[in-house]
């Protein structure tokens, strides 16, 4: 056992770190959200004006709603791609398992920006996709809806966040004892039934964790919408960025940020309790 004094001593660096990089920023964010801007100056006068604007001005709620829809679509698509991928690699790939796993991981080494830009060159008017489609006579002129649309944002974010669903789903599937899957086959279950009644329920904690990652990360994303979203693909974080930048309305930006923060923390708390319940239900 370490002495009490020693225990306190080693607790100091993490406490300092958390204070400097989490506590102080959040407290100042909280304070600023109740201040106001007067003639390009932030005035330390307490007001609920910012929150009133957030609720009153339909633009903010609309963009917040769109962001949630985009994040939900990204989550759904990432699940649709990530779960079968995890299942195939974890349980069906045999000897190719490690190689395939690495192939899924490798894109994560490439910068997020590069991947977002890659979609720009694929989807653009003179991009790879349009060129190909015109070359094969499917289209006569470049399709413009591909780039600068919510569709482009969803596509890009799905590409970027599918590994975040895949990884925890893969980890929980790889931990399912082989004998359980054999037992379900032995009892007459087809591969599909075996998946839905054994693999899926037992990997649900990992799948929920992955879905939370995908939703939270894409809800807060502002680079993809900025690069390829166009005016209709703007998300809530883009508004926050512009409020802190060009618009110089830190109080309103802070108020929006706090709202997103509360939404996200609430969501994480919910999925965390869901995960815990699923694990207990799994009973091991």
């Amino acid at each position, binding site marked *: 056992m370490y002495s009490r004094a020693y225990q306190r001593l080693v607790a100091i660096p993490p406490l300092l770190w958390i204070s400097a990089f989490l506590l102080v920023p959040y407290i100042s964010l909280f304070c600023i959200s109740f201040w106001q801007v007067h003639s390009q100056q932030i005035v330390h006068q307490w007001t609920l004006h910012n929150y009133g604007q957030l609720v009153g001005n339909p633009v903010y709620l609309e963009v917040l709603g769109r962001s949630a829809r985009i994040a939900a679509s990204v989550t759904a698509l990432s699940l649709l791609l990530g779960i079968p991928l995890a299942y195939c690699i974890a349980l069906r790939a045999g000897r190719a398992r490690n190689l395939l796993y690495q192939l899924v991981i490798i894109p994560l080494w490439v910068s997020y920006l590069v991947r977002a830009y890659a979609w720009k060159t694929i989807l653009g008017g003179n991009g790879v996709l349009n060129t190909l489609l015109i070359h094969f006579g499917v289209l006569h002129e470049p399709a413009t809806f591909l780039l600068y649309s919510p569709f482009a944002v969803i596509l890009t974010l799905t590409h970027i966040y599918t590994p975040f669903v895949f990884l925890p789903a893969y980890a929980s599937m790889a931990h399912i004892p082989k004998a359980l899957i*054999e037992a379900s086959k032995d*009892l*007459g279950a087809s591969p599909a039934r075996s998946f839905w*009644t054994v693999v899926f329920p*037992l990997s649900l904690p990992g799948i929920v964790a992955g879905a939370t990652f995908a939703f939270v990360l894409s809800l807060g994303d502002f680079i993809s919408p900025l690069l390829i979203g166009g005016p209709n693909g703007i998300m809530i974080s883009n508004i926050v960025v512009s409020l802190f930048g060009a618009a110089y309305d830190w109080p309103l930006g802070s108020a929006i940020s706090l709202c997103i923060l509360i939404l996200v923390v609430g969501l994480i708390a919910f999925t965390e309790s869901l995960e815990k319940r699923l694990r207990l239900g799994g009973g*091991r």
Partner: protein
Amino acid sequence: MSEPLLTIAGVNKSFGSTKVLQDVSLTIANGEFLTILGESGSGKTTLLRIIAGFEQADGGTLTMQGASLSERPANRRHINTVFQNYALFPHLTVFENIAYGLRAKRVPPSEIKTRVDAALAQMRMAEMAARRPSQLSGGQQQRVALARALVNRPALLLLDEPLSALDASLRVHMQSELKALQRDTGITFVFVTHDQEEAITLSDRIAILRHGRLEQLDTPRDLYNRPRTAYVATFIGKANLLPNGMAVRPENVQVFAPGSVTPPKDSQSWTGTVKRIVFAGASDLIEVECSEGVTLNARVPSGGSYPPTVQLIVAREHLIPVA
């Protein structure tokens, strides 16, 4: 022996360059309790997994009730398995674990309820229906695993060392339960174990596997009285192996003071030095080093005393030729 249920003919299996099974052929009769006995690495579990359909044989055929099993996946065989560590579904209740196979076969819900309840009652587990496997003791999990397999009324039940995870006293108890269950249901049991005594107690017939080959398949009594190989002779019970390719059981070696008797005509005799006497319950085992450099064990009544040199006599009928 009644009509064959499962015929295994010339089965081979390799993992990489390791030959796990080599030309294994055997026939399992309807309603019998057959044990596949072997040390670890003998291929017994692989043979069971091939019968269940979890592994594909490299060569050879499996024929069940006249139909080939080769093209039939595990979920379409009329065979169920009790797994070594039971492999109960941790996220399902005891009831749902047992109902799993019936649901997969789309048995009507009312019939599922009746059959699962009957299975629970048979295993004296009715009060445990709503529990999860993690809330059960090892013996209870064992019963659920049995019920989960038997509720499907399989033609063949495979058991992969199901008792090895239980402690000794519970194991003996479960042995008699298993035997009774097999008698009552009339279902053919194929039981895999490395425990000779367990095999002898339970089985109608025992197939002994060694290095992937079938060493001998016989009733426990015949394996003991007529082992065909030296391996079987020493694996099932104790045996003295003689340099002339004969084996003799210690209880068939008679011990006399040297020169006190003339060996009968149809017998073989040795003279040797008593090395030690080992207490073995109802009898003692006496170890005698004979002049030919052969050491023989003889089973003698408990508590006797012997001169330093003794004469050993074995009637010819008790000499078993072994390969």
